[in-house]
């Protein structure tokens, strides 16, 4: 669940930060605290639990976009603590056999978005505060599709090593990248980051958790040419790319698709 841009609110008199949260998207734009967001995730999990059989399990990733200005260490800490709180609820109420919460980070090198350093700060703060994992469900914009030695800059001067850190190098991070591009470009970019991990980062076991697509969201928008992989196509592109080289070969367990609203 992508809750939008990070936010905080301050005391009118002292200027001190009194809560962290997120700015929701679209018509419901407005600030909501981590307390409210935790309540949403808890109730989503409870709904899944009550309405499913005893077999399926669900991990709900509560995510934010890497947008300034509230994308800080304090926010990462608060978000990690929120995930702890949600899981405590699931355990206390005996739902944890089927439902778990993780964090989520949409780390992107977009104009106007946070810098790599700000992303790293958030990821490290989350990892220090949380006992649970988070998925990086962002992109690797402009990164090389053919080389993995970190010498070819990605968009806005980012590097493969930086995307590696945010998606795997950070203690609690797992990669769940956007595989939107119908040409297979995104899959090739992430294969190169896995190869970078293998060859240069001393992390031969970098494991992609799953592939993220936006086909449903595209259909709501009336189409998005060239970036509307279906969930199965995105998964297949990434699986084939990773398994075209023994150094990046792995099982790709999951696929997920975005839509606006629910």
């Amino acid at each position, binding site marked *: 669940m992508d809750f939008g841009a990070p936010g905080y609110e301050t005391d009118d008199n002292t200027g001190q930060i009194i809560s962290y949260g997120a700015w929701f998207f679209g018509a419901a734009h407005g600030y909501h605290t981590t307390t409210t967001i935790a309540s949403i995730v808890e109730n989503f999990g409870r709904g899944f639990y009550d309405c499913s059989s005893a077999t399926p399990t669900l991990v709900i990733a509560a995510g934010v976009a890497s947008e300034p200005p509230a994308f800080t260490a304090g926010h990462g800490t608060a978000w990690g603590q929120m995930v702890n709180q949600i899981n405590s609820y699931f355990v206390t109420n005996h739902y944890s056999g089927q439902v778990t919460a993780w964090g989520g980070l949409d780390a992107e090198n977009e104009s106007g978005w946070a810098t790599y350093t700000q992303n790293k700060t958030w990821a490290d703060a989350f990892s220090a505060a949380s006992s649970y994992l988070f998925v990086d469900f962002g992109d690797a914009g402009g990164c090389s599709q053919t080389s993995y030695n970190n010498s070819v800059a990605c968009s806005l001067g980012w590097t493969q090593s930086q995307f590696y850190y945010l998606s795997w190098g950070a203690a*609690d991070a797992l990669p769940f990248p956007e595989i939107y591009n119908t040409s297979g470009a995104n899959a090739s970019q992430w294969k190169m980051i896995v190869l970078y991990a293998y060859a240069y980062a001393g992390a031969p*076991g970098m494991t992609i958790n799953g592939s993220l697509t936006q086909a449903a969201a595209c259909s709501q928008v009336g189409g998005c040419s060239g970036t509307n992989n279906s969930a199965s196509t995105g998964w297949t592109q990434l699986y084939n790319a990773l398994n075209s080289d023994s150094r990046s070969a792995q099982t790709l367990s999951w696929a997920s698709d975005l839509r606006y609203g629910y």
Partner: protein
Amino acid sequence: MLAMAASLALIATVGVVALTLGGGAKDDLPAEKQAAYDRMAQEQAIGRDDPAPKHPAATPPVDVPEPGPRFPNMKTQAAGAGMIIDTQFAPPGAKNSVWKNLWQEQGPAHGIALYAGAVADDPQQGVVFWMHSGPPPAYLDTTAAQLPTPSRHGAVHVESASGEILTLRANDGTTFTFNAATGQFQ
């Protein structure tokens, strides 16, 4: 009941990634990730050993402490049927774009949002991202569209509104009229 509906509204208006992610530990994981997977497995076992009863027809007693919306540390001004919000946050899923502000309506029949800005690597091309949802508090059935301005005059921002008719002004002073009800430039 009202509290529950409010909560569902919040769920309905975020971009949802319905994740059913891997729960099993991988071989040779870094220690911190292995510890997190181990903790998760431990808590799953606890839950499986003593599961809560299922209530498929239950209405969860949801307590939403803040119905919102609130806009701390952000400038807003009333404009037509909605308000202009001084934010540069991106709409969900938008790539290669920069945003100047947002007009938002939360009416009894529907919710509308109109983000205004420009294409990042083509800053003379203005762009808007329009989202139309069902009524609050759920804001279900969202439709959306990203549209270029009809002509190239730089980034646009929402300047004013009359009802749901918005006036957008570009960097060079050119104005555009946008019908937020239909999601089209006029």
